[in-house]
């Protein structure tokens, strides 16, 4: 068998395509093709049809189309078809009558919409389950942890003067461990709530949300002697509570990862088409490019706990919030020269 020169096929006059070429086109279509005669007997199928229904073409040609579509061929979405293994498949079928010298035929194009719908439903269900699991697990973990914490602290409160230095150290480590675990659980809960406890996305005035954020951060701003400025902020389509959490986390990070100078942060807003790009620019310690992706992954940290407190959940929450709003989030930075975190969010006005 010789390999055809594709250029010679293409330069041939369009009036003379070969039957072989037509067969190749039908065979390689990503859509199932089934041709039946006026009695509903299958006369032709392509490779995609074999894949969709699990039959070899020898098992189909000459048989009634009811084998594939019980009740007979009909056009429409969500037509129920039968796979060889006995399972149902959900099909979208389009029909075209063909009148040829040999008689009248019907050409059906068949697309499997079920596998996509099923995969989407499965993914949605598994995500919801995971979020529910995280929420329940975190909630139920809090209670015994609180008991451990309370009693270790009670020991310390009541017997501290009667214990030696080692015992006091041990208690402090135990209390420290419990606190850290409580923080992790709380953050995990906050992370899972983004998906499970979100409010509807509605037109929201970001300026108001931003001012609320400054009020929330008031103590931290005073303590770090920080300056936060902003462009006039737009109306966007958002869950106001989550938008506040997003801004609080980003501005909070600008204060937390500050350099030698008093922290400065500027919230910028720029519109392109239907989206606003909101950015938080700071003068902090910055981030090396190799970590630009990793910082958004849950529990990923770049510093020891002694240097900077935290559980590595803040930016993961930011990413989840932004994605829930249909946007994306990224960072630009040079180590030692601050960072700019930006995210996109749909505008509330045309």
């Amino acid at each position, binding site marked *: 068998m010789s390999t055809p020169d594709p250029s010679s096929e293409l330069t041939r006059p369009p009036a003379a395509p070969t039957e072989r070429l037509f067969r190749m086109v039908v065979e390689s279509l990503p859509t199932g093709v089934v041709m039946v005669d006026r009695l509903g007997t299958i006369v032709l199928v392509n490779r995609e049809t074999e894949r969709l229904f699990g039959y070899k073409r020898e098992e189909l040609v000459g048989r009634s189309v009811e084998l594939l579509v019980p009740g007979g061929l009909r056009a429409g979405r969500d037509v129920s078809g039968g796979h060889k293994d006995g399972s149902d498949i959900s099909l979208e079928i389009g029909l075209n009558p063909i009148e040829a010298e040999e008689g009248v035929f019907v050409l059906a194009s068949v697309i499997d919409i079920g596998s996509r719908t099923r995969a989407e439903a499965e993914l949605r269900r598994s995500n919801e389950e995971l979020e529910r699991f995280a929420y329940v697990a975190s909630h139920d973990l809090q209670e015994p942890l609180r008991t451990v914490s309370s009693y270790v602290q*009670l020991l310390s409160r009541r017997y501290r003067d009667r214990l030696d230095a080692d015992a006091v150290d041990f208690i402090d480590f135990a209390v420290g461990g419990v606190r850290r675990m409580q923080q992790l659980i709380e953050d995990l809960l906050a992370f899972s709530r983004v998906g499970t406890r979100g409010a509807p996305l509605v037109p929201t005035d970001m300026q108001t949300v931003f001012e609320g954020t400054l009020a929330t951060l008031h103590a931290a701003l005073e303590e770090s002697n920080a300056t936060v400025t902003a462009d006039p902020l737009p109306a966007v389509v958002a869950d106001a509570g989550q938008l506040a959490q997003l801004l609080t986390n980003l501005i909070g990070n600008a204060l937390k990862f500050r350099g030698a100078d008093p922290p400065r942060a500027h919230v910028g807003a720029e519109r392109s088409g239907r989206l606003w790009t909101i950015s938080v620019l700071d003068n902090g310690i910055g981030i090396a490019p190799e970590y630009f992706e990793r910082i958004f992954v849950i529990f990923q940290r770049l510093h020891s706990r002694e240097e900077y407190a935290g559980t590595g959940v803040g930016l993961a929450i930011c990413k989840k919030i932004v994605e829930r709003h249909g946007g994306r989030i990224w960072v630009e930075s040079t180590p030692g020269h601050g960072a700019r975190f930006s995210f996109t969010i749909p505008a509330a006005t045309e």
Partner: protein
Amino acid sequence: MAIARPPIEILLVEDNAADVRLTIEALKDARVPNRLHVARDGVEALRMLKDATRATPRPDLILLDLNLPRKDGREVLQEIKQDDTLRHIPVVILSTSQADQDIAESYRLRANAFVTKPVEIDQFFAAVRSLEQFWLDVARLTRP
């Protein structure tokens, strides 16, 4: 001004033994003499409230956990506030929940105060002290 008072009778409705003991320990530090009675679920609490005896007299203050076996705190609260002989007793909800809806629901059912079970023991002892103050204020209002 030291007026000799009979001890405050407190009913604690709590199923978690660790939390019962912690409350007992915190009340040991209290300035006001008190006697603590414990019901381990909602059904037992209502029985103790309705059949007061000398050993478990009708309390001056009820500390009520929300999540209880058999009959939960919300139902207990509702029954207390619907009972003419019990509704005057101040009820303080003790809960691990910080959920706004639990707090709102408790006040809707006419709880007198809501205390989130704190994570830090110093906060817990402070909360018990504030309960004491709360009771003294309430007592001043209801028993001139």
